[in-house]
């Protein structure tokens, strides 16, 4: 009885996760189109792809391989987003991370295919390789966001913006661990089977991690105005006096002359 209740709670949490990532995905696609930011459009597509994969597997029973194809798209799109947003002019490390993520994703697809068509049990090998796949994808984003936050925190920029960096970093770190519970999934048991307490707990922990991630990203990207105002309440944005071009150039020359006379 208690197991059934727990299963329903965890399943509800999982549905919440899927609904939120769909909302965030659509929002980012719309904003990416409006602002002509291809990186935002890409990450929005990745989010929607992830939701399609889960819905296809759990609602329409299209199987693990179907889900994995969309996970592959979502993970690679996440790395592309990180590279385009934080490392546009760097070549070696971003390309290396993308190449490794892509390779690990292809291995996942191959192992799913082996299991599906040949019945080969490669569960623990697949899960072992899923760990670096997930860690790399989301820790790369977490690291990039945290490093940027560290550089930017000294500047007079809106606090809600700094919070967005922190949320992206923190919740990317959280979701990077979501494949760890899979190691404890018992063999031959359906994922989240209410009859098996370990499988049920694996499902529950994964659902909670996933839902936390989606809520964190929802707040980060679709931050309501009242929250922005609350966060910014002690913030004074820079307000520059309006100068004509002539006035401004005179001011700059004067300031530069003053500085050089101080040095003389």
């Amino acid at each position, binding site marked *: 009885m208690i197991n059934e209740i727990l299963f329903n709670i965890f399943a509800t949490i999982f549905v919440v996760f899927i609904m939120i990532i769909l909302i965030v995905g659509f929002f980012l696609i719309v904003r990416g189109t409006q602002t002509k930011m291809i990186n935002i459009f890409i990450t929005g597509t990745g989010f929607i792809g992830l939701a399609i994969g889960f819905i296809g597997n759990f609602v329409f029973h299209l199987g693990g391989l179907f889900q994995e194809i969309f996970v592959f798209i979502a993970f690679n799109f996440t790395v592309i987003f990180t590279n385009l947003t934080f490392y546009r002019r760097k070549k070696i490390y971003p390309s290396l991370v993308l190449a490794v993520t892509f390779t690990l994703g292809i291995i996942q697809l191959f192992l799913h295919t082996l299991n599906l068509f040949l019945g080969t049990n490669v569960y623990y090998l697949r899960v072992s390789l899923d760990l670096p796949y997930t860690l790399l994808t989301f820790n790369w984003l977490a690291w990039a966001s945290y490093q*940027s936050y560290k550089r930017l925190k000294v*500047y007079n920029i809106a606090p809600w*913006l700094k919070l967005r*960096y922190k949320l992206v970093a923190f919740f990317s770190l959280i979701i990077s661990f979501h494949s760890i519970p899979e190691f404890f999934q018992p063999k031959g048991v359906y994922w989240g089977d209410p009859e098996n307490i370990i499988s049920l707990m694996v499902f529950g922990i994964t659902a909670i991690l996933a839902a936390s991630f989606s809520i964190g990203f929802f707040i980060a990207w679709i931050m309501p105005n009242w929250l922005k105002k609350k966060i910014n309440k002690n913030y004074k944005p820079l307000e520059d006096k309006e100068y004509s071009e002539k006035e401004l150039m005179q001011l700059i020359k004067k300031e530069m002359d003053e500085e050089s006379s101080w040095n003389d």
Partner: protein
Amino acid sequence: MILIEIINILGETLAEKLNISPPAARGLIKLSIQDEFGPFKPISQLSYEDFKLIITQSLNERLVNLDVENFKIIINKMLEELKRNQSVITIAGV
């Protein structure tokens, strides 16, 4: 007009390098944006590549006209600062 954030960041660097006040430096960057794209392109639609162009072309020209001796060093520093803080364009722009 949230991309003003990147102008604030670049403005602080420029102010430090030219030994002028941050408002004057921000004004110089805004003038350089106008030089490059005219008054009709909104700041919110400027991309990383646009900012790179602004720095290497119109800001560069403005510094030359102001007789700034080490303008090449300043331009390189500005490009470095843009590269370091490029994510603001996306993170603040959504």
